[in-house]
């Protein structure tokens, strides 16, 4: 901390600055400096490490020495685009530590935003890649993220609302929504949730999403996390609220319904028949992924009579030599597949190739040859693994992995009927879920929404 220079006739620093310096005291990057020329005087207070030194020099220090009087300097500072009101003390601390410079001229104070952000490069889309859509995603810096969104949505009704949360790091959270399209009820709910956030620390969109979800046991995600600007715009137009968090390259979109998780942005970029085909494929994939293991158990152990006789015999024939009941076989293979998926996700790219090869090829063939599983089981596991990844949003595809196990348990206990009723149970669960008051799953007939005016109940 620079002590005040003891030149004679120098005015005392304003009390606000003294309080500030007391608060930030032991830190080495605090700068409190007076500017003095011919009796004219101003004080600066900022943190060296988060502010742009060049900018301060260009916009504050040089003009001060070039200007003739305090008055003209004051009006100059007032006219700067990055100038803002000086908030209450608590907020002021946050602002200063986020990269603002406090300027005191006589008894007036100004706050200039001169943030120095090093993590503002726009990142490539890696989680939800598309062929035709934008190849760049968002940024870790909230300013850049908002810029990326605003640059794609030129309407005055797009509102950006900054909320400073109560957590330990005072991270900036911004709400973005189209004021004309958003449902006020939903907006109110989201704001209330954010303000009542009782959590010491959150660092990413995923974590915040977790805290926004009130109930303790949840299977299905009720908000989407995305990195794609086109998905964000698409949802803004749909009247949804986007929550951006400083430091996270992803944003949260809320409220969402189940079908949002099954849509890829690519669907909009293709010819209608083509995208219809892909959507159909995706749903087939979804059903294969959750039903197949249960179906295998039900068909081999409970109701082989359902299949036509040739197929039933083939299945039974391939299980010759497998020493345990089918549900154990499925569980065993499912476990290895999940392990493989988890392992290849966490490993560095160079090693993950080896893991997949060893796991998939060698383990698969060896397991059948050792007659630990049937060959049909290997096919089923492979089909299941592939179809899991057809679901476009990661969160949902992970959820479906859990759903699959639940259905497997249900059909191991109760057979074919169990699979059917278990599947209905999953539908029950989804239908009974709400995302911020919006029903999670229902058949969306267009134009008939107000027929059953029960949504606001």
């Amino acid at each position, binding site marked *: 901390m620079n002590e005040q220079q003891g030149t004679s006739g120098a005015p005392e620093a304003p009390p606000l600055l003294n309080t500030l310096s007391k608060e930030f005291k032991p830190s080495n990057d605090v700068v409190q400096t007076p500017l003095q020329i011919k009796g004219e005087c101003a004080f600066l207070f900022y943190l060296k490490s988060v502010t742009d030194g060049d900018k301060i020099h260009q916009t504050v220090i040089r003009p001060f020495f070039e200007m003739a009087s305090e008055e003209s300097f004051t009006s100059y500072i007032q006219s700067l685009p990055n100038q803002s009101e000086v908030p209450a003390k608590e907020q002021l601390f946050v602002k200063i530590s986020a990269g603002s410079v406090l300027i005191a001229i006589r008894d007036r104070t100004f706050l200039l935003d001169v943030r120095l952000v090093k993590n503002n490069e726009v990142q490539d889309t890696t989680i939800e890649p598309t062929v035709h859509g934008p190849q760049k995603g968002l940024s870790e810096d909230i300013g850049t993220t908002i810029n990326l969104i605003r640059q794609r949505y030129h309407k005055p009704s797009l509102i950006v609302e900054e909320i400073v949360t109560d957590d330990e790091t005072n991270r900036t959270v911004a709400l973005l929504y189209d004021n004309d399209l958003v449902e006020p009820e939903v907006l109110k709910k989201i704001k209330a949730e954010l303000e009542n956030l009782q959590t010491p620390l959150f660092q990413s969109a995923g974590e915040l999403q977790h805290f926004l979800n009130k109930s303790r046991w949840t299977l299905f995600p009720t908000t989407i996390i995305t990195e794609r600007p086109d998905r964000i715009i698409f949802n803004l137009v749909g009247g949804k609220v986007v929550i951006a968090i400083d430091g996270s390259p992803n944003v949260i979109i809320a409220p969402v319904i189940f079908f949002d998780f099954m849509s890829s942005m690519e669907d909009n970029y293709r010819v209608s028949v083509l995208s219809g085909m892909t959507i159909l494929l995706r749903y087939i994939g979804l059903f294969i992924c959750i039903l197949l293991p249960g179906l295998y158990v039900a068909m081999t152990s*409970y*109701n082989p009579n*359902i*299949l*036509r*006789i040739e*197929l039933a015999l083939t299945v039974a024939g391939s299980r010759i030599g497998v020493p345990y009941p089918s549900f154990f076989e499925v569980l065993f293979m499912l476990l290895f597949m999940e392990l493989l998926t988890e392992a290849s996700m966490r490993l560095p790219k160079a090693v993950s190739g080896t893991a997949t090869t060893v796991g998939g090829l060698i383990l698969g063939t060896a397991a059948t040859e050792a007659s630990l599983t049937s060959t049909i089981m290997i096919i089923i596991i492979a089909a299941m693994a592939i179809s899991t990844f057809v679901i476009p949003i990661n969160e949902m595809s992970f959820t479906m992995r859990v759903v699959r196990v639940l259905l497997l348990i249900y059909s191991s*206990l*109760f*057979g*074919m*009927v*169990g699979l*059917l*009723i*278990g599947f*209905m*149970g999953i*539908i*029950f*669960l989804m*239908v*009974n879920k709400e995302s911020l008051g919006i*029903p999670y*799953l*229902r*058949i969306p*007939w267009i134009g*008939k929404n107000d*027929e*059953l*005016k*029960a949504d606001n*109940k």
Partner: protein
Amino acid sequence: MSRFLFYLILINMMTSMVSLTPRILIAGSGSGTVVSLIIALFVGIVMTYILVRLFSHFPGLGLPEILKAYAPKWFAKPILLFFGLAWYTAGLFTLIAYTIIIIRFLTPNMSIYTIVLTFVIVVTYGVFMKARNILYMSEIIFIVVVPLIVFIQLKGYINRDLNWDYVRIALMEINHLPDYGAFTSSLFIVIGTANLVIFNRVFTQLKKPTGKGMALLTFLLAYVLASTYFLPIGFGGYEPLKTTIFPWIMTSDSIRMKFGIIERIVFIFTGAFLALGVVSIVMHWHVSIQLLASVFDFKRFKWKSFNLTFPLLIVMFWVVAMFVIAKISTEGLFRAVEMYDDYFTPTLLVLLVFCLLLARKGAASKWRKSKK
């Protein structure tokens, strides 16, 4: 008319299509089922119209709320109790019928308790869902299942084994006086609208029935009623069918898919109807538990500020269901359903209309009073 109203009616109708109703109809085939079907269709449509009209006077209110507002307590409580029990029994019959179907046609080796246990978790969860969500859920299941059912029907009607002569014989019996048993059981098929006693809570804008809606409903009801009765006869023969318990299952088992992975249509058929059956049980028991909870509201019966009325009721539901399923024989079930249809269904309908008329009158006089 709201589409959800259609689901209430159609699901009730289609569930009873497979259970014991066809047998009751076929049992009376020599004595006047055909005329009863026509009368039941007519009465059912008129009843649907009257009920929807009456309920549209009380937007967003279920029967408990209506009676609470416009009827004395000593009158309301027994009626609600009766309705609650009647709906519970309706759901129970569906449950028993489907349990018997499962044990006969799908998993004969499984214990009957295990089969009931299959339903317990899912149905319990379903019963406790919000009424609105039950309607959404019924829509989803309906839309998934109906193509299968249409496919099966189509397969049935174009099948070469369908002998239209038997259908003609059955039609020839039109010259008999209507059979009461056949009339009431086909009335039960038609009268899904009565579920509005609770589901009207969701319909805040229940409009008066439109001509188009009623015409569509009449067509659908007529088709299902006719199909329920005539298609099994066409497959099974006029005389021999009288000895079967589940004519529809037998009928669907006569149809084969030559190139399908699943060769016997009966499995698709039971699967589709089982799904509808679960929805129907959920609907009936939801109505029942809400009605019963409005009768016995144990305010003091709490555990950590959590009212235990609903859990207690559902546990009782399942205990009774387990007990009855273990004891009852198919023949007993048949008798019970017959009795239920003969006495309960008409009483219930008359009582319901009576209550609503009374309440409407009360509402009108109250309104006049407040105007003065």
